């Protein structure tokens, strides 16, 4: 699913998936495809997607969202402020 939403500044594309506990969000056009989030995730939630962002990079996709434990390692290790985790419910 790719949503388009309004931030204070601009329109952003978001890849977002939720489990019953956590939502993983990826800001499409901020990603530089470094792969660090995919590598640090302890439960292998993330995979490189086929989506091409406006700079030509493939952002990750939370394919195994049900395995997310909400540790935020992906959020804290993304060098480009492109991932954020929310608690659901």
């Amino acid at each position: 699913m790719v949503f388009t939403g309004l931030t204070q500044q601009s329109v952003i594309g978001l890849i977002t998936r939720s489990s019953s506990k956590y939502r993983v969000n990826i800001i499409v056009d901020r990603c530089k495809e470094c792969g660090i989030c995919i590598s640090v995730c302890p439960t292998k939630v993330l995979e490189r997607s086929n989506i091409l962002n406006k700079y030509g990079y493939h952002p990750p996709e939370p394919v195994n969202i049900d395995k997310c434990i909400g540790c935020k390692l992906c959020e804290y290790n993304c060098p480009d402020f492109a991932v954020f985790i929310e608690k659901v419910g």
Partner: protein
Amino acid sequence: MAITYTHPLDKHLRLERIPTLYCPGCGLGIGLGAMLRALDKRISEGVIDPRKVFWVGGIGCTARMVFYVNYDAAHVIHGRSIPFAIGAVLANPELKAIVVGGDGDIAGIGGNHLVHAARRNIDMIVVMFTNFVYAMTGGQVAPTTPRKVKTTTTPYGNPEYPMNAVKLVGSLNANYVARASVTTPHYIEQFFYKALGMSGFRFIEVVSTCPEVYGRHIGLRDPVEMYNELKKRVKYKHKPSLEEAEIDWEKGIVIGEFIERNNPSFIEILRGGQA
């Protein structure tokens, strides 16, 4: 279910300048994120007034961070971020100065300023990102480059011994000296949070990854590979001594809080505290 469209750190960033100019997988963004989370906490606790926060950077990839933060900031001459910050805090002691710079900016060309600001315990936080080269200019040898590494200015291997900035600053009168790594963003956050609540000279060295330039020199061009190789070498110690402050690609990199003092800061002394 409402969906949030903003990253929790967006309010601290100049979003019109994001994405940064940093190369994919550069560790600098991880460090900046950790610092902003700590700052966010201190602001919400009421300990720091965001209008008094003031960032200073010299020249280099690291120093460029000041372009990206949604605070008052100055981008000054290479190596001169510390003296610029000294002038600012002496003119307006209410300011909370945060100096960011690379190992070249802070410990190389700016090394003398680092020494004397620490000796005088001047009120500021200096966060030095060590990526082992002059990255922005293409990978020349830096004072932190390990021996034998081939850089653009040491094509036969670096003949010099690297400096240990934690030992140097720790031997002076700094109130806080710590080291973390971009592979441990929680420690960057924790140490910067601590530093934000203190006075005097506070120094944090953050060992960072530069896959684009340093990675190319040492055969770790892939950001994930470089991150993992750095991570393997980093060892956290609880309150280690300065003697334990090893930073050696072969023997390991010790991180932790080396020095925590409550000595009167330069401004406190000027205001009539004990000399």
